[in-house]
Protein backbone atom coordinates (compact mmCIF):
# COMPACT_ATOMS: atom_id res chain seq x y z
CA UNK A 1 0.00 0.00 0.00
CA UNK A 2 2.69 2.41 1.05
CA UNK A 3 4.89 1.47 -1.89
CA UNK A 4 2.11 2.06 -4.39
CA UNK A 5 1.32 5.46 -2.92
CA UNK A 6 4.97 6.48 -2.98
CA UNK A 7 5.31 5.38 -6.59
CA UNK A 8 2.22 7.34 -7.56
CA UNK A 9 3.51 10.46 -5.77
CA UNK A 10 6.90 10.15 -7.50
CA UNK A 11 5.21 9.87 -10.89
CA UNK A 12 3.17 12.98 -10.01
CA UNK A 13 6.40 14.81 -9.16
CA UNK A 14 7.95 13.78 -12.46
CA UNK A 15 4.94 14.92 -14.45
CA UNK A 16 4.91 18.18 -12.47
CA UNK A 17 8.60 18.83 -13.15
CA UNK A 18 8.10 18.07 -16.85
CA UNK A 19 5.18 20.48 -16.87
CA UNK A 20 7.22 23.17 -15.12
CA UNK A 21 10.07 22.74 -17.59
CA UNK A 22 7.65 23.19 -20.46
CA UNK A 23 5.80 26.18 -19.03
CA UNK A 24 8.66 27.83 -17.15
CA UNK A 25 7.96 31.02 -15.21
CA UNK A 26 4.25 31.15 -16.09
CA UNK A 27 3.73 27.77 -14.42
CA UNK A 28 5.58 28.85 -11.26
CA UNK A 29 3.58 32.07 -11.03
CA UNK A 30 0.30 30.16 -11.32
CA UNK A 31 1.01 28.07 -8.20
CA UNK A 32 -1.08 28.89 -5.11
CA UNK A 33 1.67 29.75 -2.65
CA UNK A 34 3.69 32.00 -4.99
CA UNK A 35 3.13 35.73 -4.35
CA UNK A 36 1.85 37.58 -7.42
CA UNK A 37 3.21 40.89 -6.24
CA UNK A 38 5.88 42.23 -3.93
CA UNK A 39 5.27 42.61 -0.20
CA UNK A 40 4.45 46.23 0.78
CA UNK A 41 7.86 47.06 2.26
CA UNK A 42 9.69 45.90 -0.89
CA UNK A 43 7.18 47.70 -3.10
CA UNK A 44 7.93 50.87 -1.13
CA UNK A 45 11.69 50.44 -1.54
CA UNK A 46 11.25 49.75 -5.25
CA UNK A 47 9.02 52.73 -6.04
CA UNK A 48 10.12 55.39 -3.54
CA UNK A 49 13.29 57.13 -2.41
CA UNK A 50 13.02 57.57 1.36
CA UNK A 51 14.51 60.88 2.49
CA UNK A 52 15.66 60.30 6.03
CA UNK A 53 17.16 62.92 8.32
CA UNK A 54 20.74 61.91 7.59
CA UNK A 55 20.60 60.70 3.99
CA UNK A 56 18.25 59.39 1.30
CA UNK A 57 17.92 55.60 1.10
CA UNK A 58 16.82 53.15 -1.64
CA UNK A 59 17.90 55.62 -4.30
CA UNK A 60 18.69 53.06 -6.99
CA UNK A 61 16.16 52.10 -9.64
CA UNK A 62 15.57 48.35 -9.74
CA UNK A 63 15.74 47.72 -13.49
CA UNK A 64 16.98 44.14 -13.73
CA UNK A 65 14.15 41.86 -14.86
CA UNK A 66 15.18 39.04 -12.51
CA UNK A 67 15.61 41.21 -9.41
CA UNK A 68 12.69 39.56 -7.60
CA UNK A 69 12.79 36.17 -9.33
CA UNK A 70 13.39 34.37 -6.04
CA UNK A 71 10.01 35.66 -4.85
CA UNK A 72 8.33 34.67 -8.10
CA UNK A 73 7.76 38.27 -9.18
CA UNK A 74 8.62 39.16 -12.77
CA UNK A 75 10.26 42.60 -12.89
CA UNK A 76 10.63 42.79 -16.68
CA UNK A 77 8.88 45.67 -18.44
CA UNK A 78 7.20 44.98 -21.75
CA UNK A 79 6.16 47.51 -24.34
CA UNK A 80 2.42 47.10 -23.77
CA UNK A 81 2.77 47.62 -20.00
CA UNK A 82 4.88 50.74 -20.64
CA UNK A 83 2.22 52.14 -22.97
CA UNK A 84 -0.50 51.42 -20.40
CA UNK A 85 1.30 53.07 -17.49
CA UNK A 86 2.92 56.05 -19.22
CA UNK A 87 1.24 59.44 -18.79
CA UNK A 88 2.13 63.05 -19.59
CA UNK A 89 0.53 65.99 -17.79
CA UNK A 90 1.36 69.60 -18.71
CA UNK A 91 1.24 71.79 -15.60
CA UNK A 92 2.43 75.16 -16.87
CA UNK A 93 3.16 76.61 -20.29
CA UNK A 94 4.38 80.10 -21.19
CA UNK A 95 6.19 81.53 -24.22
CA UNK A 96 9.58 80.70 -22.77
CA UNK A 97 9.07 77.76 -20.41
CA UNK A 98 7.06 74.62 -19.80
CA UNK A 99 6.60 72.36 -16.80
CA UNK A 100 5.13 68.92 -17.30
CA UNK A 101 5.00 65.57 -15.53
CA UNK A 102 6.19 62.35 -17.10
CA UNK A 103 4.78 59.40 -15.19
CA UNK A 104 5.93 55.83 -15.68
CA UNK A 105 9.34 56.36 -17.25
CA UNK A 106 12.84 55.48 -16.23
CA UNK A 107 15.44 58.03 -15.04
CA UNK A 108 17.64 57.02 -17.98
CA UNK A 109 15.06 58.30 -20.48
CA UNK A 110 14.41 61.51 -18.52
CA UNK A 111 18.15 62.15 -18.35
CA UNK A 112 18.57 61.42 -22.07
CA UNK A 113 16.01 64.12 -22.87
CA UNK A 114 17.76 66.58 -20.56
CA UNK A 115 21.14 65.91 -22.21
CA UNK A 116 19.70 66.17 -25.73
CA UNK A 117 17.87 69.42 -24.97
CA UNK A 118 21.05 71.00 -23.63
CA UNK A 119 23.56 69.74 -26.17
CA UNK A 120 21.97 68.25 -29.28
CA UNK A 121 18.93 70.25 -30.38
CA UNK A 122 20.26 72.66 -33.04
CA UNK A 123 19.79 76.45 -33.11
CA UNK A 124 21.22 79.46 -34.92
CA UNK A 125 24.01 81.52 -33.35
CA UNK A 126 26.56 84.07 -34.53
CA UNK A 127 29.73 82.23 -35.53
CA UNK A 128 31.72 84.74 -37.61
CA UNK A 129 32.12 88.44 -36.97
CA UNK A 130 33.76 90.62 -39.62
CA UNK A 131 34.86 93.82 -37.90
CA UNK A 132 35.41 96.77 -40.21
CA UNK A 133 36.02 99.27 -37.44
CA UNK A 134 36.10 99.04 -33.65
CA UNK A 135 37.47 101.97 -31.68
CA UNK A 136 35.54 101.13 -28.49
CA UNK A 137 37.25 99.95 -25.30
CA UNK A 138 35.83 96.44 -25.84
CA UNK A 139 38.38 94.31 -27.68
CA UNK A 140 37.38 92.68 -30.98
CA UNK A 141 37.45 89.13 -29.60
CA UNK A 142 35.46 90.04 -26.46
CA UNK A 143 32.83 91.79 -28.57
CA UNK A 144 32.67 88.80 -30.93
CA UNK A 145 32.21 86.46 -27.98
CA UNK A 146 29.38 88.62 -26.60
CA UNK A 147 27.68 88.67 -30.00
CA UNK A 148 27.93 84.89 -30.25
CA UNK A 149 25.94 84.42 -27.05
CA UNK A 150 22.94 86.49 -28.20
CA UNK A 151 19.91 84.23 -28.75
CA UNK A 152 18.55 84.54 -32.29
CA UNK A 153 14.85 84.22 -33.05
CA UNK A 154 15.04 82.03 -36.14
CA UNK A 155 13.65 78.56 -36.69
CA UNK A 156 16.71 76.32 -37.14
CA UNK A 157 14.61 73.69 -38.93
CA UNK A 158 14.43 76.04 -41.93
CA UNK A 159 18.22 76.15 -42.27
CA UNK A 160 20.96 73.73 -43.26
CA UNK A 161 24.25 73.08 -41.52
CA UNK A 162 27.18 74.98 -43.08
CA UNK A 163 29.27 72.84 -45.44
CA UNK A 164 33.07 72.77 -45.92
CA UNK A 165 33.95 74.91 -42.91
CA UNK A 166 31.58 77.63 -44.09
CA UNK A 167 32.99 78.33 -47.57
CA UNK A 168 29.63 78.48 -49.30
CA UNK A 169 27.56 81.00 -47.37
CA UNK A 170 24.12 81.13 -48.95
CA UNK A 171 20.58 82.06 -47.91
CA UNK A 172 19.91 78.48 -46.79
CA UNK A 173 22.66 78.29 -44.17
CA UNK A 174 23.59 81.82 -43.05
CA UNK A 175 21.85 84.77 -41.42
CA UNK A 176 23.65 88.10 -41.72
CA UNK A 177 23.37 90.93 -39.18
CA UNK A 178 24.93 94.38 -39.38
CA UNK A 179 25.96 96.64 -36.51
CA UNK A 180 27.05 100.20 -37.15
CA UNK A 181 26.98 102.64 -34.23
CA UNK A 182 28.91 105.79 -33.50
CA UNK A 183 29.01 108.14 -30.54
CA UNK A 184 29.35 111.69 -31.78
CA UNK A 185 32.07 113.93 -30.35
CA UNK A 186 30.67 116.14 -27.62
CA UNK A 187 27.78 113.76 -26.91
CA UNK A 188 27.42 111.71 -23.69
CA UNK A 189 28.43 108.04 -23.65
CA UNK A 190 25.99 105.70 -25.39
CA UNK A 191 25.06 102.11 -24.59
CA UNK A 192 25.02 99.77 -27.57
CA UNK A 193 22.23 97.24 -27.16
CA UNK A 194 21.29 94.23 -29.24
CA UNK A 195 18.44 96.12 -30.93
CA UNK A 196 21.11 97.90 -33.01
CA UNK A 197 21.86 94.62 -34.81
CA UNK A 198 19.99 94.80 -38.11
CA UNK A 199 19.12 91.74 -40.17
CA UNK A 200 20.35 91.86 -43.78
CA UNK A 201 18.03 89.58 -45.78
CA UNK A 202 20.06 90.16 -48.96
CA UNK A 203 23.27 88.91 -47.39
CA UNK A 204 26.59 90.54 -46.68
CA UNK A 205 27.29 94.15 -47.63
CA UNK A 206 30.97 94.18 -46.68
CA UNK A 207 33.29 93.75 -49.66
CA UNK A 208 35.89 90.97 -49.47
CA UNK A 209 39.33 92.47 -48.88
CA UNK A 210 41.20 89.95 -51.00
CA UNK A 211 39.18 90.55 -54.18
CA UNK A 212 39.75 93.71 -56.22
CA UNK A 213 36.42 94.90 -57.67
CA UNK A 214 36.25 95.38 -61.42
CA UNK A 215 35.09 98.75 -62.65
CA UNK A 216 31.32 98.80 -62.89
CA UNK A 217 30.79 95.37 -61.31
CA UNK A 218 29.40 94.85 -57.83
CA UNK A 219 32.16 94.15 -55.28
CA UNK A 220 32.31 90.54 -54.06
CA UNK A 221 30.98 90.17 -50.51
CA UNK A 222 31.36 87.52 -47.80
CA UNK A 223 28.15 85.71 -48.82
CA UNK A 224 26.68 84.47 -52.08
CA UNK A 225 22.91 84.77 -51.69
CA UNK A 226 20.93 83.86 -54.81
CA UNK A 227 17.80 85.60 -53.49
CA UNK A 228 16.65 87.69 -50.56
CA UNK A 229 15.73 85.75 -47.43
CA UNK A 230 12.56 87.76 -46.82
CA UNK A 231 11.28 86.75 -50.26
CA UNK A 232 11.37 83.06 -49.28
CA UNK A 233 7.93 81.75 -48.21
CA UNK A 234 9.27 80.01 -45.08
CA UNK A 235 10.46 83.34 -43.62
CA UNK A 236 7.29 85.29 -44.37
CA UNK A 237 5.62 83.93 -41.20
CA UNK A 238 8.81 83.49 -39.17
CA UNK A 239 10.59 86.82 -39.37
CA UNK A 240 14.22 86.65 -38.28
CA UNK A 241 15.44 88.79 -35.42
CA UNK A 242 16.81 88.67 -31.90
CA UNK A 243 14.92 87.23 -28.96
CA UNK A 244 15.88 90.09 -26.64
CA UNK A 245 16.46 93.66 -27.78
CA UNK A 246 17.99 94.98 -24.54
CA UNK A 247 21.22 92.97 -24.22
CA UNK A 248 24.13 95.36 -23.62
CA UNK A 249 26.96 94.75 -26.10
CA UNK A 250 29.29 97.67 -25.41
CA UNK A 251 29.46 101.28 -24.27
CA UNK A 252 30.87 103.97 -26.54
CA UNK A 253 32.54 107.17 -25.48
CA UNK A 254 32.61 110.33 -27.63
CA UNK A 255 34.20 109.67 -31.02
CA UNK A 256 34.16 105.89 -30.67
CA UNK A 257 32.61 103.68 -33.34
CA UNK A 258 31.76 100.05 -34.03
CA UNK A 259 31.11 98.77 -37.54
CA UNK A 260 30.80 95.05 -38.09
CA UNK A 261 28.93 92.26 -39.77
CA UNK A 262 27.89 89.10 -37.91
CA UNK A 263 27.11 85.80 -39.63
CA UNK A 264 24.91 83.30 -37.80
CA UNK A 265 24.97 79.59 -38.67
CA UNK A 266 23.28 76.43 -37.45
CA UNK A 267 24.97 74.32 -34.78
CA UNK A 268 24.49 72.27 -31.62
CA UNK A 269 25.35 72.85 -27.97
CA UNK A 270 27.90 70.02 -28.17
CA UNK A 271 30.13 72.27 -30.25
CA UNK A 272 29.63 75.41 -28.15
CA UNK A 273 27.13 76.47 -25.48
CA UNK A 274 25.98 79.43 -27.61
CA UNK A 275 24.05 76.92 -29.75
CA UNK A 276 22.19 75.49 -26.75
CA UNK A 277 18.45 76.16 -27.26
CA UNK A 278 17.65 76.15 -23.55
CA UNK A 279 18.61 78.51 -20.76
CA UNK A 280 18.45 75.35 -18.69
CA UNK A 281 16.35 72.23 -18.45
CA UNK A 282 16.01 70.01 -15.42
CA UNK A 283 13.86 67.35 -13.84
CA UNK A 284 13.06 66.28 -10.31
CA UNK A 285 11.21 63.35 -8.88
CA UNK A 286 7.76 64.06 -7.46
CA UNK A 287 7.99 64.69 -3.70
CA UNK A 288 5.61 62.70 -1.52
CA UNK A 289 4.91 63.74 2.07
CA UNK A 290 3.13 61.19 4.25
CA UNK A 291 1.91 61.71 7.82
CA UNK A 292 2.49 58.38 9.56
CA UNK A 293 0.52 59.44 12.65
CA UNK A 294 -2.16 62.03 13.31
CA UNK A 295 -0.49 65.33 14.18
CA UNK A 296 -2.93 67.39 16.23
CA UNK A 297 -3.33 70.73 18.03
CA UNK A 298 -0.02 72.32 19.15
CA UNK A 299 2.03 69.77 17.23
CA UNK A 300 0.03 70.53 14.08
CA UNK A 301 0.73 74.24 14.53
CA UNK A 302 4.41 73.50 15.09
CA UNK A 303 4.58 71.33 11.97
CA UNK A 304 2.87 74.00 9.84
CA UNK A 305 5.28 76.67 11.09
CA UNK A 306 8.31 74.43 10.53
CA UNK A 307 7.78 74.14 6.78
CA UNK A 308 9.29 77.08 4.84
CA UNK A 309 7.24 76.40 1.67
CA UNK A 310 3.83 75.85 3.31
CA UNK A 311 3.33 72.20 2.44
CA UNK A 312 1.08 71.61 5.46
CA UNK A 313 -2.32 73.02 6.34
CA UNK A 314 -4.46 72.65 9.44
CA UNK A 315 -8.03 71.35 9.29
CA UNK A 316 -10.72 71.42 11.97
CA UNK A 317 -11.93 67.97 12.95
CA UNK A 318 -14.61 69.12 15.41
CA UNK A 319 -14.76 69.27 19.20
CA UNK A 320 -12.18 72.06 19.14
CA UNK A 321 -9.50 69.74 17.78
CA UNK A 322 -7.28 70.55 14.81
CA UNK A 323 -5.22 68.22 12.67
CA UNK A 324 -2.33 68.77 10.23
CA UNK A 325 -2.79 67.64 6.64
CA UNK A 326 -0.51 67.60 3.60
CA UNK A 327 -1.94 70.25 1.28
CA UNK A 328 0.81 71.00 -1.25
CA UNK A 329 3.26 68.07 -1.47
CA UNK A 330 4.45 69.19 -4.92
CA UNK A 331 5.95 72.35 -3.40
CA UNK A 332 8.14 70.34 -1.03
CA UNK A 333 11.85 70.96 -1.59
CA UNK A 334 12.83 68.14 0.79
CA UNK A 335 14.70 70.52 3.05
CA UNK A 336 13.84 68.03 5.85
CA UNK A 337 13.04 70.85 8.26
CA UNK A 338 9.85 69.05 9.31
CA UNK A 339 11.72 65.91 10.42
CA UNK A 340 14.45 67.70 12.34
CA UNK A 341 14.03 67.88 16.08
CA UNK A 342 14.35 64.29 17.18
CA UNK A 343 13.24 60.77 16.42
CA UNK A 344 9.60 61.51 17.26
CA UNK A 345 9.26 63.79 14.21
CA UNK A 346 10.78 61.14 11.93
CA UNK A 347 8.13 58.75 13.23
CA UNK A 348 5.37 61.24 12.42
CA UNK A 349 6.40 62.48 8.96
CA UNK A 350 7.84 60.50 6.06
CA UNK A 351 9.45 62.33 3.13
CA UNK A 352 9.72 60.41 -0.11
CA UNK A 353 10.23 60.82 -3.82
CA UNK A 354 8.36 58.82 -6.44
CA UNK A 355 10.98 57.08 -8.59
CA UNK A 356 9.04 56.94 -11.84
CA UNK A 357 7.33 60.34 -11.70
CA UNK A 358 9.43 63.16 -13.14
CA UNK A 359 8.60 66.86 -13.04
CA UNK A 360 10.35 68.15 -16.13
CA UNK A 361 11.03 71.85 -16.73
CA UNK A 362 12.33 73.40 -19.95
CA UNK A 363 13.37 77.06 -20.17
CA UNK A 364 13.83 78.10 -23.79
CA UNK A 365 16.12 80.92 -24.91
CA UNK A 366 13.47 81.90 -27.45
CA UNK A 367 14.59 80.37 -30.75
CA UNK A 368 11.88 77.71 -30.49
CA UNK A 369 8.90 77.39 -28.14
CA UNK A 370 9.59 74.97 -25.26
CA UNK A 371 6.99 72.40 -26.37
CA UNK A 372 8.59 72.25 -29.83
CA UNK A 373 12.00 71.79 -28.22
CA UNK A 374 10.79 68.69 -26.42
CA UNK A 375 9.29 67.09 -29.53
CA UNK A 376 12.53 67.86 -31.38
CA UNK A 377 14.48 66.15 -28.58
CA UNK A 378 12.30 63.04 -28.89
CA UNK A 379 12.87 63.00 -32.66
CA UNK A 380 16.63 63.27 -32.17
CA UNK A 381 16.60 60.36 -29.72
CA UNK A 382 14.51 58.32 -32.16
CA UNK A 383 17.02 59.10 -34.93
CA UNK A 384 19.87 57.97 -32.68
CA UNK A 385 18.08 54.67 -32.01
CA UNK A 386 17.48 54.13 -35.71
CA UNK A 387 21.12 54.89 -36.51
CA UNK A 388 22.53 52.48 -33.94
CA UNK A 389 20.41 49.66 -35.34
CA UNK A 390 20.53 50.30 -39.10
CA UNK A 391 24.29 50.81 -39.16
CA UNK A 392 25.03 47.60 -37.27
CA UNK A 393 26.93 45.25 -39.54
Amino acid at each position, binding site marked *: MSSSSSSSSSSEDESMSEQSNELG*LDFILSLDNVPSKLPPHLELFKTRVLCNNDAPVHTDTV*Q*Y*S*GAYAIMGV*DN*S*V*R*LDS*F*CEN*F*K*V*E*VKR*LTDSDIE*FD*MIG*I*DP*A*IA*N*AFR*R*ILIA*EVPTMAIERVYIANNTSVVQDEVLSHRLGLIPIRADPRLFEYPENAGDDKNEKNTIVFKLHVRCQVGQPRITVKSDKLKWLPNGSELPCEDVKPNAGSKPKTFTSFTCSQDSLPEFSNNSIGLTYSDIILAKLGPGQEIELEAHAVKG*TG*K*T*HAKWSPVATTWYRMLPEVVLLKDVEDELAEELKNKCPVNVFDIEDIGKGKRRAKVARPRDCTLCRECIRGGKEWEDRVSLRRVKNHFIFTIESTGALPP*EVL*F*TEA*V*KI*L*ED*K*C*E*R*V*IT*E*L*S
Partner: protein
Amino acid sequence: MNAPDRYERFVVPEGTKKVSYERDTKIINAASFTIEREEHTIGNILRMQLHRDPNVLFAGYKLPHPLQYKIIVRIHTTSQSSPMQAYNQSVNDLDRELDHLKSAFEAEMLKFSRDY
Protein backbone atom coordinates in the same frame (compact mmCIF):
# COMPACT_ATOMS: atom_id res chain seq x y z
CA MET B 1 46.35 74.54 -29.40
CA ASN B 2 46.41 70.73 -29.50
CA ALA B 3 42.74 70.27 -28.58
CA PRO B 4 40.82 67.95 -30.91
CA ASP B 5 38.29 69.58 -33.22
CA ARG B 6 34.85 69.84 -31.65
CA TYR B 7 33.11 68.19 -34.60
CA GLU B 8 35.08 65.00 -33.91
CA ARG B 9 32.66 64.35 -31.04
CA PHE B 10 29.76 63.61 -33.39
CA VAL B 11 31.05 63.12 -36.94
CA VAL B 12 31.91 59.50 -37.70
CA PRO B 13 35.19 59.44 -39.69
CA GLU B 14 35.19 57.90 -43.16
CA GLY B 15 35.96 54.21 -43.14
CA THR B 16 34.76 53.77 -39.55
CA LYS B 17 31.60 51.80 -38.83
CA LYS B 18 29.03 53.46 -36.60
CA VAL B 19 28.35 50.17 -34.78
CA SER B 20 30.66 47.18 -34.69
CA TYR B 21 30.07 43.81 -33.05
CA GLU B 22 32.63 41.55 -31.40
CA ARG B 23 31.80 38.17 -29.88
CA ASP B 24 33.39 37.19 -26.59
CA THR B 25 35.89 34.37 -27.03
CA LYS B 26 35.63 33.09 -23.46
CA ILE B 27 31.91 33.25 -22.62
CA ILE B 28 29.14 31.90 -24.81
CA ASN B 29 26.27 34.25 -25.67
CA ALA B 30 28.31 37.31 -24.74
CA ALA B 31 29.41 40.13 -27.01
CA SER B 32 30.60 43.73 -27.07
CA PHE B 33 29.11 46.40 -29.31
CA THR B 34 31.23 49.47 -30.04
CA ILE B 35 29.11 52.48 -30.95
CA GLU B 36 31.10 55.33 -32.43
CA ARG B 37 30.43 59.00 -31.65
CA GLU B 38 27.88 58.28 -28.94
CA GLU B 39 28.01 58.75 -25.17
CA HIS B 40 25.92 58.41 -21.99
CA THR B 41 22.74 59.66 -23.70
CA ILE B 42 22.32 56.48 -25.73
CA GLY B 43 24.48 54.20 -23.55
CA ASN B 44 22.39 54.61 -20.41
CA ILE B 45 18.99 54.09 -22.05
CA LEU B 46 20.32 51.10 -23.97
CA ARG B 47 21.58 49.54 -20.73
CA MET B 48 18.24 50.27 -19.06
CA GLN B 49 16.28 48.70 -21.92
CA LEU B 50 18.50 45.61 -21.97
CA HIS B 51 17.99 45.13 -18.22
CA ARG B 52 14.24 44.90 -18.82
CA ASP B 53 14.73 41.84 -21.04
CA PRO B 54 14.32 38.57 -19.09
CA ASN B 55 16.87 36.84 -21.37
CA VAL B 56 19.66 39.31 -20.56
CA LEU B 57 22.00 38.18 -17.78
CA PHE B 58 24.37 41.14 -17.96
CA ALA B 59 24.22 44.51 -19.70
CA GLY B 60 26.53 47.45 -19.17
CA TYR B 61 28.31 50.20 -21.04
CA LYS B 62 31.48 52.22 -20.62
CA LEU B 63 33.23 55.19 -22.16
CA PRO B 64 36.81 53.97 -22.55
CA HIS B 65 38.22 57.52 -22.31
CA PRO B 66 36.75 61.05 -22.43
CA LEU B 67 38.75 61.81 -25.57
CA GLN B 68 37.77 58.59 -27.34
CA TYR B 69 34.31 59.42 -28.61
CA LYS B 70 32.74 55.98 -28.42
CA ILE B 71 30.93 53.69 -26.04
CA ILE B 72 31.28 49.95 -25.54
CA VAL B 73 28.09 48.08 -24.67
CA ARG B 74 28.57 44.57 -23.31
CA ILE B 75 25.71 42.06 -23.36
CA HIS B 76 25.52 38.53 -21.95
CA THR B 77 22.32 36.56 -22.56
CA THR B 78 20.80 33.19 -21.74
CA SER B 79 20.89 30.37 -24.28
CA GLN B 80 17.31 31.27 -25.32
CA SER B 81 18.59 34.47 -26.93
CA SER B 82 21.74 36.02 -28.36
CA PRO B 83 23.43 39.39 -27.75
CA MET B 84 22.55 40.53 -31.28
CA GLN B 85 18.91 39.56 -30.80
CA ALA B 86 18.74 41.28 -27.39
CA TYR B 87 20.37 44.42 -28.80
CA ASN B 88 18.01 44.59 -31.79
CA GLN B 89 14.94 43.96 -29.67
CA SER B 90 15.87 46.55 -27.04
CA VAL B 91 16.54 49.27 -29.63
CA ASN B 92 13.30 48.47 -31.47
CA ASP B 93 11.33 48.53 -28.20
CA LEU B 94 12.96 51.81 -27.26
CA ASP B 95 12.06 53.29 -30.63
CA ARG B 96 8.42 52.27 -30.18
CA GLU B 97 8.37 53.60 -26.60
CA LEU B 98 9.69 56.95 -27.79
CA ASP B 99 7.10 57.02 -30.55
CA HIS B 100 4.36 56.43 -27.97
CA LEU B 101 5.90 59.07 -25.69
CA LYS B 102 5.93 61.65 -28.49
CA SER B 103 2.31 61.01 -29.48
CA ALA B 104 1.24 61.13 -25.80
CA PHE B 105 3.03 64.47 -25.34
CA GLU B 106 1.51 65.94 -28.51
CA ALA B 107 -1.98 64.78 -27.47
CA GLU B 108 -1.52 66.33 -24.02
CA MET B 109 -0.31 69.61 -25.58
CA LEU B 110 -3.39 69.68 -27.80
CA LYS B 111 -5.64 69.05 -24.79
CA PHE B 112 -3.81 71.68 -22.72
CA SER B 113 -4.08 74.35 -25.44
CA ARG B 114 -7.81 73.59 -25.80
CA ASP B 115 -8.47 73.82 -22.06
CA TYR B 116 -6.48 76.98 -21.33
